[in-house]
């Protein structure tokens, strides 16, 4: 009886040792081959669709659609505002959420950047997410999910929804791009541009605008100018 007990325990230990992150990573990397092999055997087809259903990690771990590259000019503009030490910390935060985060990453980047760079300039941040209550809003090539998180990141700046056209024309885009004070790459190729404006003593309302895959946070002069 003792032999059976010892064997069962050793088997259980072996199973637990097999359930390790290294082996799992190997299986993930070779999932297509393994799944194809298992599926080729008729009676194992069912197993491949239940037990190892999710091992089909055909997507690469890190998104390859990054077409935004931070250049030295962009980095220097950030360091000029918040300093080298803070920049390093912010970079780590953005890298974490850019590489591992989710569809919410760009939303919280917006909140983070507004708080970090424009805390003293903004009294209200207007967002164009009006209409039916949706989890994600698409504006041109950008997607904004669970916009309510922005409130938490920018507090005490107030966040309001407002019905305006957030899409920039090409000429408006060119004009704003020239006057952008800070530009930072977000997730999935999105570029954030912050336009500080006239740096008036009093806080002003700012708005979110979009042109293709670029987001702008700037004052409402564009709306007023039509």
């Amino acid at each position, binding site marked *: 009886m003792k032999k059976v007990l*010892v064997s069962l*325990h050793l088997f259980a230990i072996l199973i637990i040792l097999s359930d390790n992150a290294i082996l799992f990573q190997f299986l993930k990397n070779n999932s297509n081959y393994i799944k194809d092999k298992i599926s080729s055997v008729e009676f194992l087809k069912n197993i491949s669709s239940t037990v190892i*259903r999710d091992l089909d990690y055909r997507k690469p771990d890190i998104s390859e659609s990054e077409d935004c590259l931070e250049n030295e000019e962009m980095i220097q503009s950030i360091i000029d505002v918040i300093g080298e030490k803070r920049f390093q910390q912010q970079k780590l935060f953005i890298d974490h959420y850019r590489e591992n985060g989710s569809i919410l990453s760009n*939303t919280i980047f917006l909140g983070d950047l507004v708080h970090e760079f424009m805390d003293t300039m903004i009294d209200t941040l207007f967002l164009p997410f009006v209409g039916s209550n949706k989890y994600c809003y698409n504006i041109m090539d950008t997607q904004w999910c669970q916009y309510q998180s922005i409130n*938490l990141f920018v*507090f005490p700046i107030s966040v309001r929804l407002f019905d305006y056209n957030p899409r920039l024309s090409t000429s408006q885009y060119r004009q704003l791009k020239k006057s952008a004070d800070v530009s930072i790459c977000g997730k999935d190729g999105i570029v954030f541009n912050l336009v500080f404006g006239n740096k008036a003593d009093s806080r002003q309302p700012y708005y979110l605008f979009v042109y293709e895959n670029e987001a702008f946070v700037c004052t409402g002069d564009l709306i007023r100018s039509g």
Partner: protein
Amino acid sequence: MVNQLYFLISVYLVGAFFSILLFKNLKPGVRYFVTPLLGVSFLSFSVGCLIVFHVPIQLVSVFVVLLILWILLYYHSYYRAVGEEKSILSDFKGYWPSKEFISSLFLFSIIATFFVFWGKSSPGSDSTQFEGIGRFLANGGTLKDQPPYLAFLLNGRLLVVGAMHCLNRLYGGYSLYALNPTILIWSLGFFTLLFRDLMGDLPRERKFILIGLFFLAMFLCKNFFTQIFLIHSNAFAMIYFSLAIICLYSFSKSGNKSWLTLGSFLMGTATLIRIDMLIFSLLYFVLFANIVNSDQSALKKSWATFFLISFPWRLFTLYYTPFDVFYVNASHIILLLIANIGLAVFSFVAQKKTFHLFRNLPLLFTVGILALISLTPLFRPENLKLAWEVFIKYRLLGQDWFFLFTASLLMLFTTFKVKEKDSNITIFAYSTWLYILLLILMVSMYNYAEKDHSAGRILNHIVPLVVFWVFLSCSHVIGESKREFQKI
């Protein structure tokens, strides 16, 4: 980055200030290992107090609340030790300047420094809300400012992990990524220490091999490893819950009541980390019945510790939670609070009046859950199918848990024989399987048909327990069970 390191070291130091007053009957090694967990708990209590009183959170106010809590605990210890004032003073002197304490602080700092400067993290969707509520509080926000999804934030993202993010911001840190890995690796050391103390009597070489394998198996176990870098409450819940159960086993071996108080303290904090822990606190106290026998004071003290930590915050969040919100609504909270109070009352009465019933509470609880699961098809036939598809087939028999589930099943069969050597090994069998059964029941009652069901993530909270159970049981099978565990 250095600011985050300051924060992590302060977590240890805050824990150390409180551990002088708490669990004094445990051996110093255990107290030093549990110190950062106490730090996380007490810092969270302080943030919780400030939230309750609508006071904007600042470091000064947090430390004032900590000081008040410390003084209260000090006087509690003083009045309990009337005529032993000297022993309290000597405890101070013996605790701080000891080599073990300094080594422990040094080791914790090394681990924290490594993770702070490595800078590895793996945030997910939920991480954004932990970050968000932390920043909101750190920027001076209170509940009067009515942030969006308030009920969800209170019940789903606070108290502990959100509070840690808030404090890290107040220390000047940018985002909190090193706390989880530091606490998890530290706790892995704690699990290993407890395993060494609790394992069967083995020859020296076999002992080292088994301890080494245990450490390796736990560290590399994919369900543990992936949680090391994830910014979420699941990793903390896993540590606090698993340790609470192991505390019960440690008490069953040593008879040292401090283990029960520590276990109830950890269980209470676990309910502040995640509200679903109020379901599994029932499991914890059901197992309690199996080991405290007729000791009424142990039962009272443990429930009191648990209620004191867990209930004030939940009653407070109940006030802000309507009956018609997603995630957790008021009726869920009321049901969970009533269930815990009901079990406490039942335990006290049963222990006094019908001891036989009290002693067999785990068995009765198991039968009750099985009966409920069996009855589910009568009322909601589709829901049991849902539990099968979403939880059993997809999660337990899926890639995430297939190995651990098989190991648990094997261990269940061996328990009947192993308990002849160590009757208390049933604590692990009950805790693992009752946890799984409770989750099946939860999935079948909570009509949520997505494969990304939170039950799948909650299941990972017992990973350390399963690994601990397998290795501990093995040590008893290949060696001889110890009869006395005086040193722990």
